[in-house]
């Protein structure tokens, strides 16, 4: 279920914790698995648990508790826009609406061509750069005015 590259990355995470505390690497391991598979199916969650020598339920608890794990398939590009108050005061909610309109989907939905998933996010600790949008759980896009959104979407192929 997990590639050699993913396992090597998990092994590197494991060096951070005491040998008997492999469970600490669970969050990273699930992230790494999600990077490989796009989302965390039950099988993937179980494979991660197996690799760390944990009962599957331990991994499932973490996979379902933390909001950045995808428990369903998502589009090639996942866009999470922050609509919390500090961002909303500087156009965060409007950015979300504009994205919905442009992509023709609501929050939590994926475009029919499987390209985009749009999510409503909570504070990302980047409110000074509002409106902000997190791209594929990794890159923070700042100052997402309609023009900036158009530009970003045009870049994504």
């Amino acid at each position: 279920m997990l590639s050699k590259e993913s396992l090597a990355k998990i092994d590197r995470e494991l060096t951070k914790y005491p040998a008997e505390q492999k469970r600490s690497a669970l969050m990273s391991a699930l992230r790494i698995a999600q990077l490989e598979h796009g989302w965390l199916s039950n099988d993937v969650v179980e494979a991660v648990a197996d690799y760390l020598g944990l009962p599957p339920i331990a991994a499932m608890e973490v996979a379902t508790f933390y909001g950045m794990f995808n428990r369903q398939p998502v589009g090639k590009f996942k866009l999470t826009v922050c609509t919390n108050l500090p961002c909303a005061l500087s156009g965060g909610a409007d950015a979300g609406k504009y994205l919905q309109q442009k992509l023709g989907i609501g929050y939590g939905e994926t475009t029919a061509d499987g390209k985009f998933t749009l999510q409503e996010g909570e504070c990302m600790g980047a409110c000074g750069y509002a409106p902000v949008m997190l791209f594929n759980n990794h890159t923070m896009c700042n100052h997402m005015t309609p023009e900036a959104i158009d530009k970003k979407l045009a870049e994504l192929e």
Partner: protein
Amino acid sequence: MATFAKGVVFEGVDFDDPNSWRLEEYVKRGGYAGLRRIADEKLTQDQIIAEMKLSALRGRGGAGFPTGLKWSFMPRSFPGQKYLVCNTDEGEPGTFKDLDIIWNNPHALIEGMIIGGFTMGATVGYNYIHGEVFEAYERFEEAIEEARAAGFLGANILGCGFDFQLHAHHGYGAYICGEETALLESLEGKKGQPRFKPPFPASFGLYGKPTTINNTETYASVPYIVRNGGQKFLELGKPNNGGTKLFSISGHVNRPGNYEVPLGMPFAELLELAGGMRNGKKLKAVIPGGSSAPVLPADIMMNCTMDFDSIAKAGSMLGSGAVIVMDEDTCMVRALERLSYFYFEESCGQCTPCREGTGWLYRVIHRIEHGHGRPEDLDLLLSVGANIAGRTICALGDAAVMPVQGMLKHFRSEFEYHIENKRCLVDH
């Protein structure tokens, strides 16, 4: 975004230089000199704690607990492993200062943690970083590698006979993990559900071992204190409120951003630094310490100075130093609706009053905002709040209630107008 720095955490940082965060640059501006001072002058753990106490540094994570005192609680002579943990899980709406620290000056944090480790006899540290700022997490890992290569991390640091290892750990989208015991659970690879206290982390922390947890900005202030002495830091601020503090200013200002200024600066001056009100609008209200802090109306705020004591006296809290500025066109009902949704969404679900109560708060405010409010709803909100606050394992419950109480205290008439007229008092 503007960053105004005239202080401790960002001392000498060049925000226009993409390499300013690197170890080499940090050393050029006096970095790691605090650690060297400990090595050269053979400072003892007790001496450092005394300096920390003198500095009046108060925790920058929200509660403002005196750091020197916290450090003195660690059972230093306890044989066996002890841990040091940094809280960079910054998720309190309005707060974006710790991101700026690990992005622009990660070595100040690393040096602060090494000094903390030495002072408390902890040989392993973890920095728990908010999952959404993943690029900053990657940069912090790189900074750790730099420090390791330079011999600041590892065995027998600077020949002091002291070992310290530091690792970065990321969250993945759960506000609750900012609460220190939820953070520990999460670091152990579990759901982030807070623990009962006592026992406190100083006696039962990470993996059950004595652990000290501080905020990013707290640790990043430590090198300055060790280098220059606690007295100098204290004098930057005001008594009981030592040093400078980072304020994250968001909302209706011309230049949102982080501003590092002396504690005790008048709010009016800080607002001026942030470029004043956007579009020349009038100030209506300010949430002075992150979304959990009760809102304060403009007239009260304009008479406050930005320090723990002044804001507390005004009936709110300095919290994490996140200043959310709202102009005259802001609908308070809608603002509160969004905040209440956040607490509802982020409650970990462990305690019934918080899990159920945050849902009630959100639903009632939602119906007021959408024209279905009932006259008795405002009392209902206060009564639900009273049944959450103080009845939960951690303070998320209180954090959800305080914004509601603050809004109803200062802007009740706006809520009443909404209920009666089924529309907003302000145009938006």
